[in-house]
């Protein structure tokens, strides 16, 4: 069959940032399938130079509007490692609670606002206000709660204000925490309804084997950590992140690409699940089984399910954290900060995967050199490689041109790419 197909999506919609899909099939043969990030670079690594350690976490947050709390926390960890600081226990708990707020907010935004319209055959969540108001109401309630959790623990949902070098500045008041505790418990019903909703989605059964990289669980499902692991058997200190990412520049992309044991690797909810599933909350594990998510899962579309599983985990862990915070004396919230010359690496599991910030400071506490390796940067090469396999797989099944374009778009969206972040 001499089939000619061109899929040319310029500026894919319902993703954060600007990226293009190009697929060309000539005489029935796949000529090329590309995922190219064309976002304008901002040169954050250069802008960090000369900045005072107090400005650094604020600047870091501005790398991303969706995962600003993760960028801020990773930045703080890098600076605190450079200054050889240990933050107080209460501060670590408040930070983890803020982290859970962000993970929930980001995953829910993706599941309901960015991914769901594809499965319900609409261009966006907006028509669903009329046709499926119940789903939208659930989305709004869950996302609103996640944002309030961020507000209470980080001072603001986007670009946090109470997270600073040495700890946190504010201990959330117990009334607010108790209110949140109650709402989180109630939200489990909405999450159960979301599980039913996502079960009704027809996730494509596409599989391409790859490598999954995440932080290693040490005392629980990992959001902060010092060790990195992969499904190909790599294990190393997060401080050696350069040997994990092996970043390189691609001619067609403003985002760099990365590779580890094979041509590309994946980070994010599915990677965390594949590497650390035994550390999930039992309720999250039960839902994973119910939704046929089993490690090691190589279907990129199952990232949607892994995100939902993590929402359930984070909700339960957030309730436990609130109980602990209320039951103990807060004590100190910040450690004394003495700027020192030296280098520090911070590693955090941002919603879309492992995030590294690496800073070198001078004795005045100003940055001399900075480097950031961002989750979506690490996923872009893998998305690109998935595309060829996906197109070949579906063309063999005789898919229509229009459906092929949708499948390609859905593939990219399933990675929940944070594109401006990946270019930074």
């Amino acid at each position, binding site marked *: 069959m001499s089939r000619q197909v061109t899929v040319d999506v310029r500026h894919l*919609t319902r993703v954060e940032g600007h990226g293009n899909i190009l697929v060309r099939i000539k005489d029935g043969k796949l000529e090329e399938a590309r995922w190219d990030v064309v976002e304008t*670079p901002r040169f954050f690594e250069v*802008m960090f130079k000369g900045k005072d350690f107090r400005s650094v976490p604020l600047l870091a947050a501005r790398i991303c509007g969706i995962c600003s709390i993760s960028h801020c926390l990773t930045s703080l960890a890098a600076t605190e490692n450079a200054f050889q600081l240990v933050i107080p226990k209460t501060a670590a708990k408040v930070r983890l609670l803020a982290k859970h707020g962000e993970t929930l907010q980001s995953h829910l935004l993706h599941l309901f606002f960015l991914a769901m319209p594809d499965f319900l055959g609409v261009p966006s969540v907006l028509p669903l206000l009329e046709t499926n108001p119940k789903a939208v109401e659930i989305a709004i309630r869950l996302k609103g709660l996640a944002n309030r959790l961020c507000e209470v623990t980080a001072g603001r949902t986007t670009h946090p204000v109470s997270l600073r070098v040495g700890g946190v500045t504010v201990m959330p008041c117990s009334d607010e925490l108790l209110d949140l505790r109650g709402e989180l418990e109630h939200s489990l019903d909405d999450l159960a309804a979301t599980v039913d909703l996502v079960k009704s989605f027809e996730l494509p059964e596409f599989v391409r084997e790859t490598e999954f990289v995440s932080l290693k669980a040490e005392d629980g499902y990992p959001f902060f950590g010092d060790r990195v692991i992969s499904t190909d058997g790599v294990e190393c200190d997060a401080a050696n992140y350069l040997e994990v990412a092996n970043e390189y520049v691609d001619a067609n992309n403003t985002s760099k690409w990365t590779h580890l044991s094979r041509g590309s690797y994946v980070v994010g909810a599915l990677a965390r699940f594949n590497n650390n599933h035994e550390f999930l909350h039992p309720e999250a594990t039960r839902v994973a089984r119910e939704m046929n998510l089993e490690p090691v899962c190589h279907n990129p579309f199952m990232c949607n399910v892994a995100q939902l599983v993590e929402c359930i985990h984070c909700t339960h862990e957030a309730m436990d954290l609130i109980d602990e915070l209320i039951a103990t004396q807060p004590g100190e919230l910040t450690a004394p900060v003495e700027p020192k010359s030296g280098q520090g690496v911070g590693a955090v599991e941002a919603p879309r995967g492992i995030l590294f910030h690496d800073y070198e400071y001078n004795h005045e506490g100003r940055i001399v050199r900075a480097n950031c390796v961002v989750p979506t940067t690490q996923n872009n090469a893998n998305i690109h490689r998935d595309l060829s396999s996906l197109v070949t797989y579906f063309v063999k099944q005789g898919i229509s041109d229009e459906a092929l374009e949708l499948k390609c778009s859905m593939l990219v969206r399933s990675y929940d790419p944070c594109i401006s972040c990946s270019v930074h």
Partner: protein
Amino acid sequence: MKYLGIESQRPKIGVFDFTGCEGCQLQLANKEETLAAFLSCIDVVCFREISSASGEGFTIALVEGAISREDEVERIRWIREQAEVLVALGSCACFGGVNRLKNDFDLDEANREVYGDQPKPTLPVRAINEVVPVDLEIPGCPVSKAEVERVVQHLIWEVPFRFPAYPVCLECKQRYTVCVFEMGELCLGPITRAGCDAPCPAAGLGCWGCRGPAQETNFEEFLSVARERGFSEDEIVDRLAFFGGFRGIA
């Protein structure tokens, strides 16, 4: 949406993004308690981050981000031609935002440092109003959704709207925040335009001036007080430059 039995005009709104973090657009999908009501009074014809509908014919363009590449110059000119009202959303669109810090460096060297021998096209960062005329500017990093809602109500129903003329200081007093300047933090609250409800000082952080100058600020007096309290020239200059709102003054 009907009001007194009459179908009200839902203005066609397009949301567009340039160099930035897309955090201001995200605010449009936040403030969940009024989200459904907000969406019911506007007709979103173009909003790439959340919708695949690519309708044209928008009358109001909400534009986020700064301009830092040739294709962005062309795109913002096209948006300007289409829109009756162009609103710059957030500090990047209004002032260049943190992106503007890039302009302190040699761009060829910056490119080499990040991309080695494969440099990518880039231009010095400009605010939207340095490229095309802007009708209304809503500063903030990120913007306050409450303020965006008020501006949109103003554009649709002519509900009165004014930016506060006074500085952030007053909002700290209104919410009983202990003055962080008095506690030894450098704070731009005395000279920065209010309207954000002062979340930063409430968290013990000084104001970083993301909304640019208030009206009739006593800039000289602020500088002399800041110096008197022992803040170095470097600290003060760095702070004023952070979001780009004080350029031309500092």
